[in-house]
């Protein structure tokens, strides 16, 4: 088990070791969240590395990563716990067959931990020899408000109440990371319990560093041009800007195609990796791509 970082610089180094290139602001917030034991609430456009930070953290700290992907209609049965009904029925049937039906006993028996199916949130409260796990609550905005309210108990007190069984409390709180894409606003009550951070698109230097770390096979020139082009593209009036994830995909795709530099035709052929809306692709035609590439080359040369 690796110890938690003891300073902002150590946090920065920890993430860099894992191939994640954070800015100092993110490292500061993450360090505070680890130190104060408060959940980290990350907001930002899709593909800026919100989910990735949890994965890297789990990997570097040697902790278990428990991921709860939120979706509309996510309820207690699939997020926290469920009873194993089939096994319970058999238990009742078996009790009937042997003939000793003691009602009190049967209820206690059937609603015991033996028949409990533990879902991610409950798993996160289990003691782990490797240290408290990292609980990633991904895309919370997709779940409905009722579920958000349910999370309050877990985030504030690290406990879950099961009516039939009682309250289950974690000895040591899990490291919680909540992410949202802002498809709706999350209620203030939940945000108040967390440390908030908005992750923005990285600047040229940092994005270049990310590409070099993640797609080492791409040459120096290609990486510079790809990053400069994507940076230019984000300044265009697009419906959906390409994220860092798209930049990495694109760099990897161009490497697979054995390209060492960009040219307008290649851009036009592979634009689908970067832009996911037809309107946006139509806006960046070969001419526009050529013009952007010229500007990007000038940026990359600096």
């Amino acid at each position, binding site marked *: 088990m690796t110890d938690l970082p003891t300073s902002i610089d150590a946090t920065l180094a920890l993430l860099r070791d894992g191939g994640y290139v954070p800015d100092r602001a993110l490292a*500061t917030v993450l360090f505070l969240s680890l130190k104060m034991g408060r959940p980290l609430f990350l907001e930002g456009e899709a593909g800026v590395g919100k989910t990735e930070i949890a994965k890297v953290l789990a990997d570097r700290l040697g902790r278990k990563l428990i991921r709860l992907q939120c979706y509309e209609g996510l309820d207690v049965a699939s997020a926290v716990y469920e009873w194993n009904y089939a096994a319970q029925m058999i238990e009742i049937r078996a009790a009937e067959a042997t003939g000793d039906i003691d009602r009190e006993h049967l209820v206690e028996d059937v609603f015991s931990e033996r028949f409990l199916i533990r879902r991610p949130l409950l798993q996160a409260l289990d003691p782990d020899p490797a240290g408290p796990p990292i609980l990633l609550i991904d895309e919370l905005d997709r779940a409905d408000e009722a579920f958000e309210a349910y999370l309050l108990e877990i985030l504030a007190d690290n406990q879950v109440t099961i009516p039939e069984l009682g309250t289950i409390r974690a000895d040591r709180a899990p490291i919680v990371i909540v992410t949202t*894409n802002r498809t*709706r606003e999350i209620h203030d009550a939940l945000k108040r319990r967390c440390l908030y951070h908005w992750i923005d698109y990285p600047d040229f230097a940092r994005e270049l560093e990310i590409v070099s770390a993640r797609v080492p096979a791409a040459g120096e020139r290609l990486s510079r041009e790809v990053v400069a082009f994507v940076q230019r593209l984000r300044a265009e009036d697009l419906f959906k800007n390409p994220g860092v994830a798209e930049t990495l995909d694109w760099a990897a795709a161009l490497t697979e195609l054995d390209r060492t530099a960009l040219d307008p035709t290649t851009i036009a052929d592979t634009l689908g990796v970067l832009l996911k809306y037809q309107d946006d692709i139509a806006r960046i035609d070969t001419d526009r791509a050529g013009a952007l590439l010229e500007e990007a080359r000038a940026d990359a040369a600096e």
Partner: protein
Amino acid sequence: MSNGRLADNIVHFARALRRAGLRVGPAAIVDAIRAVEIAGLATRDDFYWTLHALFVSRHDQHPTFDQAFRLFWRKWGLPGAGSTADEGEDEAVEPAAPAAARRVSEALFEPSGAAAKTAEYEVDARLSVSEIEALRRRDFAQMDAREIAEAEREIDGLRLPQDRVASRRMVVGPPSGAVDARRTLRASLRAGGDLILLRHREPRMVHPPIVVLCDISGSMSTYTRVLLHFVHALGRQRRVTSFLFGTRLTNVTRELRHRDVDEALAACSEAVADWSGGTRIAAALHAFNRDWSRRVLGQGAIVLLVTDGLEREGVEDLAREMDRLHRSCRRLVWLNPLLGYEGFEAKAGGIRAMLPHVDDLRSVHSLEAVADICRGLSRAARGIDPRAWLKAA
């Protein structure tokens, strides 16, 4: 600077932020002081992001915080290493949005006395029953102040229909639905476990949220006040996100959340810079599509677009933005007060560009029409096909 003074200054800073409109509770201040102790005061940036993590909880609060931070800590002196290099960097930071700057400077440099209250008065102007009957069909543009007041009272009383969609959550249902294993088991145990009585469940029905985009340009000015009343009334019954647009788009959801309708409207007029000016529908829709559609159209929202559609320039852009909007929401309803005129024909270029992309076209020129909208929000009571207007013209 000693720790005691630093703590005091953080408290003062938090108060300044609160006056500038950020929600900073006492718990956040205590946490912030602790966080600064943990993070240390090595650099200005660390100090900045430490306070940022505790005091900012929404992305749009960032400019206000940024401005306040720079003003406040320059005034009181930065704790720790406040080198000259930092000062130089200070100037390079791009200026915050003017609105944030104004709020911050008011919060920091002016006494926090309550704003002067305008005189409040109430006129009791109730009409007789027969007058109300006539009023229901009268165009809002032709009403006098007393009649408008009456119309607003009527609007307050409107009830929305049971317009509902199935959510993915389950509730107790009739025996035709799926079996609810958990309740079945608990019920059978209650009876001693010999009988298994099946319990059932069905999807819970919820009201879909509503998004209102309301045109407040000059050509709509006679309707604006009444329509805002209508939006306010909607907001008390449903989850409503509201936007006003003339030459630019303003989100007034928070302003319209005031319980008192007059306060809500006053807050709106403060928030909006372009009352009764020109209109650029295509640009406003573009801004909505780009900045807001993904955030507010998530849960199967119904969009009410209130505009007369009189756009002179950029008709192609308008068609494209309407198309995008239409494909992003569950249902797009266009409310057009011009429809109240008898001789209405879909001839104007803007109107012809918008019509193919709406699910429903309705009028909002009179009380009766507004009541009709309330019924029309449910899918069953669908009006005439909007495309019919294209053929007619």
